[in-house]
């Protein structure tokens, strides 16, 4: 059945070099195959960006995509994905973001926005429904993300404009700069803010007044009400998330013996109670906030009312930020973490990689590879939060030692030398977040094979603790299965939390993702949809992302975990003595399960046929990654 609604099937294509604005149709078959969100981003990435592109050159493109449920009444429908070639890793990059911006793009009448080229001077893209303009933005250059949003709304005399912008970090091409929406929601990972900065694009301000048409609004409302009831009635998505957001993971990771501590030297932080969700709630939390149309309200809003950081307001923190500036740096001062969070939001920095870079620097300092003099007089001792805050400023401003860290892990190792790679904990150039693989082994294999580098959001699973007890073949198959499940929210434009991670039981997640979501897509779009088709779309997206990375030169040797996890036993905590001793077996099993060639890492041709990506297979054959003259796809 044809797609009748839900989507606009419209792409806004803007070339900043030429000052050209085009509105193009999105072919129906692309929507049917890729669904939206991450699927759209990987599709348009594959067919629009030259593999040789400099990630910070005009030839890279920045691709923003919503999904068929973005901006609808479906719960947590506030997400979009932005991607392109990553300046941090040199492979495919993308980041997912909540807030209000994604729905607004949809209300303006577009599913996808592609930004190419480079403006001759600082620019803003202004989208008001059908009216799209490229405006000069010299006055905004150098402003932080909060100021940028306020100034744009003042300029347009309309506070209904939603703003996605970069801060000073993106302007300065810090390779882990993010794109900031509503001054506190970040499309954080893989450096998409630096790509935006390289295009001289300060902000994209959007206002949309259109109604997103639904194919069968009564059916949609019925299914939506059922899903809404499940999400709000579930103790995880309906009670735990509003109460704690993600901050309870501090306690959980520590109790598992997997709380990254002092640049992953340990996995148990003795002071975890000083930085956990209860302490946040008691001392600093002033409101629970939410992304668009989300009943789970996991965002935090915090305020420091006394002490050194008195007066600090911040939208946050996530557990990811708490741990990246907390245990990972040996820092037990929660107020300083809130300050670090605020600085990162204003500068437009990924809190995770910023913390990861500083953790690396601190260990280099501890081991004598970096001296006080090298670090511009800063004493990079564990827990020295004054130095941490100073470094955040210097990273964003690319000043002194901060400039070395602003390059990201791989380049910083090159600048420091002296064997610094030993302390650079990253996969494919991106640092993993905060749960130690030695504590939960099978589950955290996800860091090794995630398409965007050290990442925890491509795979999440109910029963993660059981995986280590299974034979590796069975465990690998489970990982693949859960990967397909948790990819679905990324495709349809909703949040993973209330749809997948935060359900009381796996059955609840299956009910939501494999039953109600397909129904909602059918009712929104008129398109045939069921759980199997959705899972295939997830697999197709993963295959496409893998193909992008193969084209970027990725090899099996890049699907690794850092030596620290493989060789150094955990020194303390519940998993004391653990090393990651299953890597080779699990990798073999996962490759087999994913049908990736063990020698080359390239997916088998049969997958391209089964998942209807013949054009991609043909391109890979032409480029010599898949054997030509063999197989069915010619």
């Amino acid at each position, binding site marked *: 059945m044809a797609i009748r609604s839900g989507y606009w099937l419209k792409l806004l294509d803007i070339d900043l070099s030429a000052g050209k604005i085009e509105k193009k149709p999105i072919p129906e078959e692309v929507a049917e195959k890729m669904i939206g969100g991450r699927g759209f981003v990987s599709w348009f990435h594959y067919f629009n960006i030259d593999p040789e592109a400099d990630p910070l050159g005009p030839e890279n493109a920045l691709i923003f995509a919503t999904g068929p449920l973005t901006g609808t009444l479906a719960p947590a429908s506030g997400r979009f994905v932005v991607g392109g070639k990553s300046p941090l890793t040199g492979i495919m990059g993308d980041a997912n973001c909540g807030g*209000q911006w994604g729905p607004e793009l949809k209300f303006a009448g577009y599913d996808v926005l592609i930004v190419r080229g480079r403006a001759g001077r600082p620019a803003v893209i202004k989208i008001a429904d059908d009216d799209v303009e490229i405006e000069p933005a010299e006055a905004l250059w150098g402003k932080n993300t909060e100021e940028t949003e306020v100034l744009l709304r003042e300029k347009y005399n309309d506070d209904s404009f939603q703003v996605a912008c970069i801060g000073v970090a993106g302007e300065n091409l810090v390779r882990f700069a993010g794109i900031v929406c509503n001054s506190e929601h970040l499309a954080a990972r893989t450096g998409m803010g630096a790509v935006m900065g390289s295009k001289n694009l300060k902000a994209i301000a959007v206002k949309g007044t259109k109604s997103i048409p639904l194919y069968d609004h009564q059916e949609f409302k019925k299914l939506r009400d059922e899903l809404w009831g499940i999400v709000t009635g579930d103790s995880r998505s309906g009670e735990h998330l509003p109460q704690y957001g993600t901050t309870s993971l501090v306690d959980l990771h520590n109790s598992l013996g997997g709380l990254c501590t002092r640049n992953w030297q340990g996995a148990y932080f003795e002071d975890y109670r000083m930085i956990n969700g209860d302490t946040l709630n008691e001392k600093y939390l002033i409101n629970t906030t*939410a992304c668009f*149309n989300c009943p789970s309200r996991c965002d935090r809003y915090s305020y420091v009312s006394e002490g050194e950081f008195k007066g600090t307001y911040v939208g946050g923190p996530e557990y990811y930020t708490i741990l990246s500036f907390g245990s990972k740096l040996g820092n037990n001062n929660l107020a300083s973490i809130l300050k670090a969070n605020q600085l990162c939001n204003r500068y437009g920095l990924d809190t995770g990689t910023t913390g990861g870079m500083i953790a690396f620097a601190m260990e280099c300092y501890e081991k004598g590879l970096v001296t006080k003099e090298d670090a511009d007089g800063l004493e990079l001792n564990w827990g020295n939060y004054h130095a941490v805050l100073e470094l955040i400023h210097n990273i964003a401003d690319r000043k002194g030692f901060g400039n070395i860290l602003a390059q990201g892990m791989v380049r910083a190792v090159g600048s420091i030398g002296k064997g610094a790679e030993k302390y650079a904990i990253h996969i494919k150039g991106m640092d993993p977040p905060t749960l130690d693989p030695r504590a939960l082994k099978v589950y955290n294999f996800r860091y090794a094979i995630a398409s965007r580098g050290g990442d925890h959001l491509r795979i999440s699973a109910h029963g993660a603790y059981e995986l280590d007890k299974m034979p590796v073949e069975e465990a690998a198959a489970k990982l693949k299965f859960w990967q397909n499940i948790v990819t679905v929210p990324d495709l349809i434009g909703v949040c993973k939390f209330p749809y997948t991670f935060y359900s009381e039981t796996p059955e609840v997640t299956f009910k939501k993702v494999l039953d109600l979501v397909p129904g909602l897509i059918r009712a929104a779009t008129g398109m045939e949809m069921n759980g199997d088709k959705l899972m295939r779309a997830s697999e197709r997206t993963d295959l496409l992302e893998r193909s992008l990375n193969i084209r970027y030169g990725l090899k099996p040797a890049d699907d690794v975990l850092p030596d620290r996890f493989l060789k150094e036993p955990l020194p303390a905590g519940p998993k004391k003595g653990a090393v990651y001793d299953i890597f080779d077996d699990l990798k073999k099993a996962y490759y087999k399960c994913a049908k990736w060639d063990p020698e080359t890492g390239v997916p088998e041709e049969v997958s391209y046929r089964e998942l209807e990506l013949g054009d991609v297979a043909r391109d890979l054959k032409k480029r010599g990654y898949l054997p030509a003259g063999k197989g069915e796809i010619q």
Partner: protein
Amino acid sequence: MKLSFNKAVCSGCRVCEMICAYVHFQANNPRKAAIRIKNSETRGRYAAYYCNQCGACMEACPAGAIHEENGVYRIDRDLCAGCHACVGACSRGLMYTAGDEDIPVKCDLCGECARECPSKALTLEQV
């Protein structure tokens, strides 16, 4: 009936806007809602803007399309000529106009927003 808003607990999710637009227009479009959530002047807090049923719109309507019923001012869609005199008459700017709708959007205290509000910031009270 009175719609009350507790600023201390609103999370800014805008579910109220979405459900209002759906109930009245079967539309996925917060611009068709009779309630708007915006950042308040206090950081981390939100403000809700909706009609307080003062009746100035009824006074201003040249077509007699607005009438009062148990303290609720309603627009009769068949009588409304879409002149927007009421929009100008609302000193608080709470008669909303939306995209392709000629007829202004106004709160009729149906209570759907309060029913859906996840943080119970909106409540419909008997007065």
